[in-house]
C-alpha cells in the first residue's frame, strides 16, 4: 500500500475519532454551527482525497454527505432526526470502508445506495432501517497502529530530550552572565524554542490524555442505549488526566465492556425506572482522577444494582463456591464473585455484553498492568466499579507552593481554590489549639504546611490558604507561604522510602531542574487527622432518623389533650385577661400590652378570668398559643411519627410510652403570617413540573417556609422571585435560579447547586436570592 493511501487512512481514522464527540453533540443540537462545520470539514477533506486516490465508493458517500451538510450550513435545509441519523450512517460507512481498504478485506456495498438515498430531501423513513454496524463488530483498533516503536526507544528519546532541556537551562544561565549580543540572543531563543517544542512532542509520544479513550464513549452509549431501548445520559469527567499510552490501550477494552454492562444489565428500561420512582433517563458517570500514586477511573450507573445474594447463588450453582465458603461470606466478598470466570448474572447472555470479554477478563487485564478493579453496589440504586491503574508515568497539572523555602506540587484536581487568609471572606480562628477557617459558611481545619513538614514553626498568622478536597470528600485548607506557578508536571513514582511517609504521590522534575515532591493530599489529611465529612457518592436517601432528644414543653391543651412544643420556641408563659381576645376575620387575635397578635386555641376559651398563653417566637414573628396548664419540661425525640394532614400538629412523639402531639411551629407561624400578608409571600417557580418529587416533597417544604409555589407549566401569578430547578429552567422568566442536585456530594468544585435534601441550605439560598432580588 503506498504512502499516500496509508496517510489518508491514518488521517481519516484520527479525524473520525476526534469528531466522534462532535457528532453526538451535533445530534443533540443540530443547529450548532461550529459542530456542523467540523463535520462538514471532515467529509469535505475525505471527498477531496478520494478524488486523486481513486476511491469511488468513498467519494460517492462523502460527496453526498458533503452536499447535505452544505445545504444545512446555508440554511436550505433544516436538520430533523431522520436526516441526522442518515448523515451519521453515512459517516459510519465511511469509517468502515476506510478500515476495509486498509485490511484489504472486501466490503459489500449492499445498502450503500440506500444510505445515500436516505439523505435526499424527500426521503421517506426507510422501511428497513439502515443500521450503522454497531461498534461491537468493528475490530478493536489501537492508537499506535500507524507505527510501532519499542517502548525503550521512546524512553531513551525522553531521557535525551530532558538532558537537552537541562543543557539549555545551563546555557541560558551562562549567557545571562555574559550579556549576549542581539544575534547571539536571537540564536539562543530559536534553539530554546526548538528544544521546548521537541520536549512537548516527545512527551506526547509517550503520554496521551485519557480523553482519547473517553471520546468514543458518547457515540457508543448513544447507539447501545437506542439499541437496547434504554434512555441514558453519559457524564464524563477528568478527561484531561494523562496516562502512558500503553496503559490506555490496556484499559480500553475493560472500560468499554464495563460501559456495555452498565447499559445492558444495569440501567433498566424506562418503564421499569419510572415504576421504581427513578428518572426515566439513566445516568452513567465516568470519572478519572489521580489519587495518591494511582489513577482512578470510576464507572458508575444508577441502575438496578447487583444483588450479592443472587451472585452467590449463581456462583454456587455453577460450582464455583462451596456451601462451607458461602456461610459467613461478607457482602463485599459476595459482590466480588462477579469477577469469577464462567459466571453470568444476566438472565440471558445478550449479544451486546456476553461476547468474549467477561468481568474476569476485565480484572485480569487490569491486574496485568499492576492495577485492580473493585465493585460496590446498592440494590435498586446502581453499581460503581473503580479501576485503579498505577501511576507509572503521568503528566499532572499541578500548582507549585512553597513553605519555609521548600517547594511542593499539589495536583490541580484536588484544589478547590486559593484564598488570602484574614478578612471577612476567610476568617481564621483558633479552636482547641488548632486553627480553623470559615469560608462561605463552612468551617475547615487549617493545616500549616511548614509546620506539618517540620520545616518551621507555625507563623503568627497564615498568609495563603489553598483549599483542598480529597477524593473522599474531606475538605481542609493548607496554609502556605507562597503560591508559584501552575505547570503540567511529569510525575514518576517515588521510591518506597518516600512512599512510606504516606504523604507523597510521586516525584517530579520541573523546569528549574530541582527535584520536587508531589503531595498526596488524602495522605496528608489522614496523617494530620483531618476529617470534616465522609461522603460517599450515593443516590439521594431519605434523611436519616437521629435518635436525638430535644427539650420540649409538655402541657395540657384546652381540649384536654397532652401536647408539647419545642422549648426554644417558647419565649414566655403568662396569663392574659380573656377580654383581650377578639375574633376577627375567622381567626382569633389577642391584644396584649399594646400589641396585637394571632392567638391559637385548640378548644373553647373561658368566658371570664384569665387564660394561660405561651408566647411563641421564631425570632422575627410572634404569636400566642392558649393552654390549660403547663405539665413539665421533658426531652422528646426529634423524630416524630408524621400526621397525614398539614396543620398545627407536626407529629407524634412518645413520652413515657404515651403519645404526645407536638405543635408544628412552622405551620402556626405560616398560618399566622398568611392572615396578615398573603401577597407578601414571595413566588417561587419550580421548574420541574413533571417531577413527582418536586410536587410531593419540594412544594410542601417551600410552602411551609413561606413561599407561594407555582409550576413552570402554569402561568405564574405575579412576579417570580426565584426559580428552583434540577434540570432546565423555563424560558422567558427573569429570576435568580437555584439549582438542585440529587446527590450529597458536589461533582465539581465550582458547582453551586444545592443537595435537594439540604433543607437548611435550600432555605438559606432562597432567602438570599429573594433578598437580593429586592
Amino acid at each position: 500500500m503506498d504512502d499516500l493511501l496509508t496517510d489518508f487512512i491514518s488521517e481519516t481514522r484520527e479525524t473520525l475519532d476526534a469528531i466522534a464527540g462532535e457528532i453526538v453533540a451535533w445530534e443533540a443540537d443540530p443547529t450548532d454551527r461550529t459542530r456542523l462545520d467540523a463535520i462538514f470539514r471532515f467529509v469535505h477533506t475525505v471527498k477531496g482525497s478520494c478524488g486523486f486516490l481513486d476511491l469511488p465508493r468513498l467519494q460517492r458517500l462523502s460527496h453526498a454527505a458533503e452536499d447535505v451538510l452544505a445545504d444545512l450550513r446555508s440554511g436550505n435545509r433544516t436538520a430533523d432526526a431522520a436526516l441526522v441519523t442518515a448523515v451519521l450512517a453515512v459517516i459510519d460507512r465511511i469509517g468502515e470502508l476506510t478500515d476495509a481498504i486498509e485490511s484489504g478485506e472486501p466490503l459489500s456495498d449492499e445498502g450503500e445506495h440506500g444510505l445515500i438515498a436516505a439523505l435526499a430531501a424527500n426521503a421517506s423513513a426507510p422501511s428497513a432501517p439502515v443500521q450503522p454496524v454497531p461498534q461491537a463488530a468493528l475490530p478493536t483498533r489501537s492508537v499506535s497502529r500507524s507505527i510501532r516503536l519499542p517502548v525503550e526507544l521512546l524512553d531513551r528519546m525522553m531521557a535525551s530530550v530532558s538532558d537537552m532541556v537541562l543543557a539549555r537551562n545551563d546555557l541560558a544561565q551562562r549567557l545571562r552572565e555574559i550579556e549576549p549580543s542581539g544575534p547571539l540572543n536571537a540564536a539562543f531563543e530559536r534553539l530554546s524554542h526548538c528544544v521546548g517544542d521537541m520536549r512537548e512532542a516527545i512527551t506526547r509520544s509517550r503520554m496521551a490524555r485519557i480523553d482519547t479513550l473517553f471520546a468514543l464513549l458518547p457515540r457508543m452509549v448513544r447507539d447501545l442505549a437506542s439499541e437496547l431501548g434504554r434512555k441514558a445520559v453519559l457524564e464524563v469527567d477528568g478527561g484531561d488526566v494523562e496516562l502512558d499510552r500503553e496503559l490506555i490501550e490496556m484499559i480500553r477494552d475493560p472500560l468499554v465492556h464495563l460501559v456495555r454492562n452498565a447499559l445492558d444489565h444495569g440501567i433498566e428500561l424506562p418503564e421499569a425506572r419510572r415504576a421504581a420512582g427513578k428518572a426515566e433517563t439513566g445516568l452513567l458517570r465516568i470519572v478519572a482522577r489521580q489519587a495518591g500514586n494511582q489513577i482512578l477511573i470510576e464507572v458508575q450507573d444508577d441502575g438496578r444494582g447487583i444483588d450479592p445474594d443472587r451472585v452467590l447463588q449463581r456462583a454456587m450453582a455453577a460450582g464455583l463456591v462451596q456451601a462451607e465458603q458461602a456461610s459467613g461470606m461478607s457482602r463485599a466478598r459476595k459482590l466480588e464473585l462477579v469477577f469469577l470466570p464462567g459466571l453470568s448474572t444476566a438472565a440471558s447472555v445478550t449479544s451486546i455484553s456476553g461476547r468474549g470479554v467477561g468481568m474476569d477478563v476485565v480484572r485480569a487485564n487490569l491486574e496485568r498492568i499492576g492495577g485492580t478493579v473493585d465493585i460496590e453496589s446498592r440494590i435498586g440504586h446502581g453499581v460503581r466499579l473503580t479501576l485503579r491503574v498505577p501511576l507509572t508515568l503521568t503528566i499532572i497539572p499541578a500548582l507549585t507552593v512553597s513553605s519555609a523555602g521548600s517547594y511542593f506540587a499539589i495536583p490541580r484536581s484536588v484544589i478547590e481554590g486559593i484564598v488570602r487568609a484574614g478578612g471577612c471572606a476567610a476568617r481564621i480562628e483558633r479552636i482547641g489549639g488548632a486553627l480553623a477557617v470559615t469560608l462561605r459558611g463552612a468551617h475547615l481545619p487549617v493545616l500549616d504546611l511548614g509546620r506539618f513538614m517540620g520545616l518551621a514553626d507555625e507563623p503568627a498568622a497564615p498568609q495563603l490558604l489553598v483549599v483542598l478536597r480529597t477524593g473522599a470528600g474531606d475538605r481542609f485548607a493548607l496554609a502556605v507561604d507562597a503560591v508559584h506557578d501552575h505547570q503540567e508536571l511529569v510525575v514518576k513514582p517515588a521510591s518506597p522510602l518516600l512512599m512510606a511517609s504516606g504523604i507523597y504521590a510521586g516525584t517530579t522534575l520541573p523546569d528549574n531542574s530541582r527535584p520536587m515532591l508531589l503531595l498526596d493530599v488524602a495522605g496528608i489529611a489522614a496523617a494530620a487527622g483531618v476529617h470534616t465529612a465522609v461522603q460517599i457518592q450515593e443516590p439521594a436517601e431519605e434523611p436519616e432518623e437521629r435518635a436525638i432528644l430535644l427539650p420540649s414543653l409538655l402541657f395540657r391543651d384546652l381540649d384536654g389533650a397532652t401536647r408539647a412544643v419545642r422549648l426554644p420556641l417558647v419565649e414566655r408563659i403568662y396569663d392574659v385577661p380573656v377580654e383581650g381576645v377578639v375574633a376577627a376575620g375567622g381567626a382569633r387575635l389577642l391584644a396584649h400590652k399594646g400589641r396585637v397578635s394571632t392567638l391559637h386555641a385548640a378548644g373553647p376559651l373561658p368566658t371570664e378570668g384569665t387564660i394561660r398563653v405561651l408566647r411563641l417566637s421564631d425570632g422575627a414573628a410572634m404569636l400566642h398559643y392558649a393552654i390549660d396548664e403547663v405539665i413539665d419540661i421533658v426531652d422528646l425525640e426529634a423524630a416524630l411519627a408524621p400526621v397525614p394532614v398539614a396543620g398545627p400538629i407536626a407529629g407524634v412523639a412518645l413520652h413515657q410510652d404515651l403519645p404526645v402531639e407536638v405543635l408544628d411551629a412552622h405551620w402556626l407561624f405560616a398560618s399566622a403570617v398568611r392572615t396578615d400578608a398573603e401577597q407578601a409571600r414571595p413566588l417561587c417557580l419550580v421548574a420541574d413540573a413533571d417531577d413527582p418529587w418536586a410536587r410531593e416533597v419540594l412544594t410542601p417544604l417551600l410552602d411551609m417556609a413561606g413561599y407561594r409555589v407555582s409550576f413552570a407549566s402554569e402561568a405564574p401569578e405575579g412576579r417570580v422571585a426565584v426559580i428552583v430547578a434540577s434540570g432546565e429552567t423555563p424560558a422567558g422568566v427573569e429570576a435568580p435560579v437555584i439549582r438542585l442536585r440529587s446527590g450529597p456530594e458536589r461533582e465539581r468544585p465550582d458547582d453551586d447547586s444545592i443537595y435537594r435534601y439540604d433543607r437548611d441550605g435550600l432555605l438559606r439560598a432562597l432567602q438570599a436570592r429573594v433578598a437580593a432580588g429586592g
Partner: protein
Amino acid sequence: MEGMYLIARIADQPVALPAASVGSVIEIDAIVPVPRVEAHVAGLFALRSRILTVIDSRVVLGLTPIERGPHMAAVVVTVDDHGYALLVDAVEDVVEASRPAPCPAILEGYWRAFAAGVVRRGEDAVLLLDLPAMIAGRLPQAA
C-alpha cells in the same frame, strides 16, 4: 568466583559493593530534603532527568551524617526499578577481588547488620555491603 568490586570508604572503613550493582559514581552538589521520612534518607538529587533518592550511608550505620558540601561522593545503584545515590565519604577504586567469605571478625552492632561478608583485596579484608539492607536502612531479618 572472582569479581569486580567498587571500593569506597565510609568513616575510614573500606567497604565493597559488587561492580555489577553500581550504575555510576557521581559527585552531588545539592540535595533537596524530603520531610517526614526516615533519618537515613538525605533527600532527592536529579541526575540528568532521573530523580535519585539519596541515602546517607553513615546514618544507616549509626554514625554521624556525611558532611554536606559541593562535592559529595555518591554511588548510584538501582534496586527494584528505583534509583538511589548512596552517599559515602570517598570512592577509591574498582578492583578485582576474591569471592566473598563470611566475616572473620566479630563485628560491632550496625556493621554486622549491613555486612554481607568480606572480600579480599590483596592482603586486606574489605567488608562487602548488603545493598538492599543499606537502602532499606533497617536491620535485616535474622537469617
